[in-house]
């Protein structure tokens, strides 16, 4: 396989950036969720 260094760099940077961003959003979402009462988090509500 040629250009292994470039391939590893390109793919791993992309994956790392997306994972880091997604992790940040999820963690932030969790901490914010705890501060909001359940009845204001509509997407977790059972069908009514």
């Amino acid at each position, binding site marked *: *396989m*040629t*250009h*292994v260094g*470039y*391939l590893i*760099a*390109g*793919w791993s*940077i*992309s994956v790392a*950036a*997306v994972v880091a*961003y*997604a992790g940040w*959003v*999820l963690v*932030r*979402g*969790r901490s*914010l*969720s*705890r*501060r*909001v009462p*359940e009845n*204001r*988090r*509509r*997407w*977790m*509500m*059972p*069908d009514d």
Partner: protein
Amino acid sequence: MTTATTESTGSSEGIPATTSSKATKVLGWLTLGGFAVLVALAFAWVPEDTRITEQGDVVGQFDAVRLMFVHVPSAILAYTGFGLTFLASLAYLRWRTDWWDMMAHASAEIGVLFGVLTLVTGSIWGRPTWQTWWEWGDVRLVTTLVMVLVFIGYLAVRRIPADVAVKARRSAVIALVGAVNIVIVNRSVDWWENRTLHQQSTLIARKIRDETLFTLSFSFAVGMVLFAWLLLHRFRTAYLQSQIEELEVNEALAERRAEAGIDESPGGRP
């Protein structure tokens, strides 16, 4: 992609404190599975890019072509994000609802993420294939760079502590100007020095192999699912933030009224 359509059944032990729902879980697993398949396709199935010239020399990008499957979908997602920001900003100025403002914010952030990735992966791909990290004469390259810069500025404005409505309105105008600007920059760079290194519409010309084409399309699909997953989570985070701010305002309002000696407990913002 409204929050109302993505409800999940509540669990018996209370609602978990996350931004996940049934919909995002499905999208999340689809993304992970799709990504695994994409890696397999990109590295095991797609052949290296070679051609044999009439003189018998072997030319092409060889294995570097496998960078296409992160670079091109990144670019598509970046433009999708910015396009959505533009539409949401337009909708905000028309209807002035927080929903559109949060949508604009969420999609701009994701757009910047993939915009930066587009530039980085493009640079990494360009080095072995074009023998350069960066080419100023390339229209798409320079346009994308300017666009990412404009939206980094947009996010900077959004981070300023200011009145919510003021910030939303100003951000919306910046997004609109930014979108118009993309067209102007694109045209002027095109005129400036049209020596693009990008392949012109390779998809239509059918110059690439079927395996490569299929994998590229597959990477778009995985990218779109990832985009939807990120957008839902980011939007809900923004929504939670606004809910917390509203709760704080209600609290402050009650305190203020107590200061005035009004005993009736206000049932929230009237």
